[in-house]
């Protein structure tokens, strides 16, 4: 019987201590951040919302090579290549189903032109799942993102408008196929 009474006292004492500790917290600095009024600091290499960037000339960087799509472990990227009148490849549509995306960043790693980049923005909640499907016009930004200088077509051998054969970086002028001189 004494045992039972001792137990009850212990329980009551514990609750008094708890209440005291909670009371003390009223005078401490709060750990909670007033999100969304207070925005947290996101590191630049945080893997959040995906954007498509432009090269330093202001053209779309994406060449629709499909490497991001094949690298994607949840297969949530679908795109179709098309080309302009001068042979420059770009995506006709570029779709990411963000309701499937796991923000792993494999697409960014796979991208040979630094077109697709993950940004520190994580605020992507929607009331309707269908709104999580983003198209190119939702993702394409007017800037170079994290990589400022790279311009794929300036190093590639393919001719595009404004850059003929032999005009890329580190290229010789085209050979004369009618000459037999070495």
């Amino acid at each position: 019987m004494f045992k039972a009474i001792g137990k009850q006292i212990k329980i009551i004492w514990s609750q008094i201590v708890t209440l005291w500790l909670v009371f003390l917290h009223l005078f401490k600095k709060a750990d909670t951040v007033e999100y969304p009024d207070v925005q947290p600091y996101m590191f630049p290499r945080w893997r959040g919302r995906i954007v498509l960037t432009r090269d330093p000339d202001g053209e779309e960087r994406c060449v629709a090579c499909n490497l991001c799509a094949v690298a994607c472990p949840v297969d949530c990227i679908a795109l179709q290549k098309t080309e302009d009148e001068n042979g420059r490849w770009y995506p006709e549509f570029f779709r990411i189903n963000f309701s499937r995306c796991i923000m792993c960043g494999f697409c960014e790693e796979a991208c040979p032109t630094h077109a697709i980049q993950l940004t520190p923005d994580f605020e992507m909640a929607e009331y309707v799942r269908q709104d999580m499907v983003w198209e190119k016009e939702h993702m394409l930004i007017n800037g170079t993102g994290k990589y400022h200088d790279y311009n794929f077509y300036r190093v590639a051998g393919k001719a595009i408008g404004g850059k003929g054969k032999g005009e890329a970086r580190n290229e010789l002028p085209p050979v004369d196929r009618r000459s037999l001189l070495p």
Partner: protein
Amino acid sequence: MVSITIDGKNFEVDEDNNLLQECLSHAMDLPYFCWHPSMGSVGSCRQCAVIEYADDNDEKGRLVMACMTSPREGGRYSLKGARKFRAQAIESIMINHPHDCPVCEEGGECHLQDMTVMSGHAYRRYDGKKKTHNNQYLGPFINHEMNRCITCYRCVRYYKDYAGGTDFSVQASHDNTYFGRWQEGAYESEFSGNLVEVCPTGVFTDKPFAKNYVRKWDLQTSPSVCTGCGVGCNTNPGERYGTLRRIVNRFNDEVNGYFLCDKGRFGAGYVNSEQRIPVSMTRDSHEADPVQIEPDAAKQALKDAAKGAIGIASPRASMEANFALRELVGEDSFYAGISAKELGMLNSIIDIYQNRPVNIANIKDIENSDAVLILGEDITNTAARMALAVRQSVKNLGRQMGADLNFPNWHDAAIRTLAMDRKSPLYILSPHATRLDDVAKSVHISSAAQSARIGLAIAHAIDNSAPAVKGLSKEEQSLVDEIAGTLKGAKQALIISGTSSMEPALLEAAANVATALNDGDSKANLALAVPESNSLGLALMMQGNEKALEQAMSSGSKKAIVLENDLYRRAASADVDTFIDGLEQLAVLDSLKNRTGEQANLVLAAATFAESSGTFVNYEGRAQHYYSTFKAVDSIRSSVSWLSDKSLNELNAECAAALPHCAELTHLTPGEGYNFAGLKAPRQPHRYSGRTAMRANINVHEPKQEQDENGVMVYSMEGVPAIKDASVFNSPWAPGWNSNQSVFKFQEFAGGPLKQGNQGKRLLENNVKDKPWYEPEIAGDSDNGFKVFPIYHLFGSEELSAFTPAIQEKATSAYIALNPADAEKLGLHSTDGVQVEHNGAVPFILRNSIAAGTVGVAVGLSGLNFRNIPGSIALDKAEDWQSPDNWKAANIIVSDRSAESGKGSAS
């Protein structure tokens, strides 16, 4: 077989193959570029280097190229020892290679990518300037991106040496070598498309595919069969986002091997054509506007229409679809949708294959023949893959000369140098010069009837008991003796003919020659070309039932169901008009809009080969199954599912049971119960991307996987690719081998037949010992007007491929071909048109090879309708002539063009 040691392991290898081939056959990954199983070795790329040791005491060894080495008994080799050399070789190859992979159509199936990774070269150390090249326009089929070239020389070896092309070569010298045409322009060869697969990197790529490009890993593919002609080449169509993107070759050792013709590769764009019938339509009378009808209602309407209707079958519909029509209308009301003459010729082919002592030649047999006689068939245009095989057959003399000197068969450059221009004999009898003339020993210009007579005379000269022919000229008689002597002396003679000339006696003459050559143990090869993908299958279905299109049109029936058939291409327009006007109800099942469909009361939107499965029977009587590549939208259904409630497999089994010779039809696929470890065969590769996003714009919730009609393959990436069965052999892939070169992993030995055997089953065979003869009556050529012979075009003459934009660019409108002297008699100038009797006014070209008094008429092209070729016609200068917009004289590639005709009429 000899035993050798590679890196300490013992192997039994075939000494007739080169060491590279044997390394690959024994599952070793040895990189290579210039070697190709069909083209042999030249040792130019230095990529397959291995170390060969002189004897057991030799520790240093010497560097040899595996592709140029015959394995010797007790030989000791090392692959590992030369790894560093191979890495250096590829590093130097890669010095000038552009940074193009992301924007290259070859990326993901690039042999150069695979070999670079395999050799261990990962970082570019060279930072000097790269060599560049200007590209050329090479026609509507092929893109040129010369910067990517690694100078392995495979392209020129294929185009010039293998396919016999003359308008493509290597230019410049030293570091500047350039592969292209002497000036920009479309390739002349009918086999240029194979450059796409032959080139180990992205110099030559598929142009129509590049316009609508996706990576290889994103294509949903299936094992399929080409619909372009009667050869039945195995193809591998690829689909993405609901449209057919491209066709590539699917290896079948006995049919197409590694190569397709350009019609097969680029001619399937009609699947995406704007002329497709997207929905079923109905109307009450011929004059009323058609209204759309729901699929289920349409099917019910077809069922109602079938009561008391006749069924008109089609040589381009599958066996199952034709059989379903026969079931629906009953055998008595079932008619072949081809002319009586054509049906008669197809029946006579079946008779020859069954009751004559001949060997029915597949494409490989054609390649292995060492004396060839072509009787009146322009195979380059009617059965193109056969022509490529004939080009290989003339090289057998050189191979024999090499063998006599102990040269191995794969030693390509040595054998070519040895043979120079000596070739195995090829004789051509034709009413006009053909594209094979450059490799022929002799070409004789004669009408189909006269060719048949000469053929019969050859049979008689070989075997006295064959019926004799009288009235040959002295010159013809000496030709007969020459050909008879050559064929008799050959190890394996081959006779080729076909139906395109519409001269039944030609087939019988060809059969007589082949019969005469039978000397008891060895049979002569015989190949008889048929016009369409299932012509022979339709004839098999019509055995003992001589009901052709003429009988259908005169049957007096008030209702008709036409299956995948444009009657206006089969009979004279006036006859078809009369027939259709007499009908109360015309139901048409077709995939493309045509004149017959326009007049129907009920049009059902039928699927093409890419959206349905079925069976075709090719020219040799080989039944081959094709699987649908993708599911069409619900309003488009396969003809089988329109015509019948039964499943494809049930119809297939009933068809096999009901028809003579067709028992093997049920054994073409592994059957409904097929599974490997509980899984079916997948249509999508295991890297297929975008599954959760490709339909997300329509609905973010993903639909259930589409179900397959056969129960063998699934529309999914889940499953086990074909391991057991050649008919399920889809797009090949092996670890480290992403390009089409990976096919060797599935072959018995590199370059040999598939481990699973060959696709397709022969329905016809013969065990005849005696020698029955045909004694055809050949009508004399008429003396009035111009004697007519048909001219076919690979691009344009065939109905379906003519809807493909790239093919249209290479095709032309109808024309006639005349001897220059005749044109002068008619008073024609190059810009004039010719009025053809009972037909349209068309432009003309002049050809020197055409005999005076004869005229070649282009068939199948727009402007003329010549389904029944008359004996002779009258020609006249056309009044108020203007050449049609799609007249492109430059697309007619013939060697005997008279200079004058090129001037005004070329567009």
